[in-house]
């Protein structure tokens, strides 16, 4: 089979499967980034809270997951989440084995890794808010919640955008490791296609090209978002 047929959209072509894989890669990375954002902001908050125990836990989590190979984390989350779910089920009287769906385990793995890095991004973004703004908010009588959602959250998001953009790219690439769990995202689909057509070069290069498309398009999106988020800010005079 010619490589054009193999990659194409015909009856025996792998084109649709690869595109579906790319969409799944995109979805699992978005879910991972979102989970990472929750974990990361919790850790950032724990470090800023001044509560020693909370800070130590947050610090420990971030240090551990930044120090472990991503592949090891993927295996660990994959094996561990199913065992945890089964254990929980047994507590409530269940008997069989409960597997966590591959998508959930994958998003969780990417999220746990991303969260350990996002913590620093959010912490830095919070510290970049001018102190006077927080004081001013308090001075006009804003409570904790009101000042959080009117003053802190919008600015943290704005300052965190460049860092989040980098971590999005990392999440996108880390998601390729989920292929070891059998989830048919882009990497796994490329592997299956390479195996069944005996054209590994064609399909790994095609897979790589699709990853490049994803990273470069999303890079544009983040650039646009950054330009929009900072449109009200004064430019530094040169």
């Amino acid at each position: 089979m010619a490589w054009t047929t193999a990659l194409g959209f015909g009856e025996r072509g792998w084109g649709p499967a690869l595109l579906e894989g790319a969409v799944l890669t995109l979805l699992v990375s978005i879910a991972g980034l979102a989970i990472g954002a929750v974990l990361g902001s919790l850790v950032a908050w724990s470090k800023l809270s001044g509560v020693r125990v909370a800070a130590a836990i947050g610090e420990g989590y971030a240090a551990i997951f930044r120090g472990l190979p991503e592949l090891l984390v993927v295996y660990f989350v994959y094996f561990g989440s199913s065992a945890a779910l089964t254990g929980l089920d047994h507590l409530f009287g269940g008997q069989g084995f409960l597997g966590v769906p591959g998508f959930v385990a994958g998003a969780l793995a990417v999220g746990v890794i991303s969260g350990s890095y996002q913590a620093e991004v959010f912490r830095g973004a919070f510290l970049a808010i001018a102190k006077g703004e927080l004081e001013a908010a308090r001075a006009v009588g804003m409570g904790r919640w009101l000042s959080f959602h009117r003053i802190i959250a919008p600015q943290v998001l704005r300052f965190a955008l460049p860092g989040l953009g980098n971590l999005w790219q990392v999440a996108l690439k880390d998601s390729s490791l989920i292929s070891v769990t059998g989830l048919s995202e882009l990497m796994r689909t490329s592997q299956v296609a390479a195996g069944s057509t005996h054209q590994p070069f064609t399909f790994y290069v095609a897979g790589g090209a699709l990853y490049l498309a994803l990273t470069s398009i999303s890079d544009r999106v983040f650039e646009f978002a950054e330009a929009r988020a900072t449109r009200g800010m004064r430019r530094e005079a040169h």
Partner: protein
Amino acid sequence: MMDGAFIWETFLRLIVALRVTLSVWALSVFFGAFIAAGVAWMRGSGVKPVEWVARAYVFVFRGAPLLVQLFVVYYGLASFPAVRASIFWSFLRDAFNCATLSCALCTAAYQSEIFRGALAGVPHGQIEAARACGMSGFLLFRRVIFPIALRQALPAYSTEVISMVKATALVSLVTLWDVMSVALKIRNDTLVTYTPLLVAGAIYFVVNYLIARAFIFIEQWLSPHLRARSA
């Protein structure tokens, strides 16, 4: 399940496998640095086509996951009869060489950006001053540009070097017996779910910690002017 003897035995087997992990890591970082220096030089050469090649290199090797690159080299290239007949085959037939090559090519893209940033960060006044003293060419580079750039590159460089230790875990997927794959094999053979992975994790963690400490030490050693004076 979590008995000491089993942990010890696992630890010993993983420490033996650590040699493979560290070999791939050290060789790829070492050769990657040379490729990176070349790419950074091309990027700053001022000749447009040469600059584009360097940009394209960084775009491709940073934008695609290392796993894809590794598979293109290991499975992809080997699928061509022409490659198998060429003189490169004695090199490419070995999984270790393929793994080291892909890791080196990938880290080179990241390292070249670090070098580029560090070179751009050398204050212009320093270079002017050196020129005013009559330095130029290699002397200027060796005495002024390189030492300043090196100090500026170190923090980012240590991050990249540590992330390469973690990245070498991927070579377990191309039949190499590194720490990751030996841990998985012990897991499969003994059906002990977590212990092998935990021991492997501890080994990676300690290795990364030691590398991070070493870089902090080098940084302090290279920045005597920032140290508090005792007098």
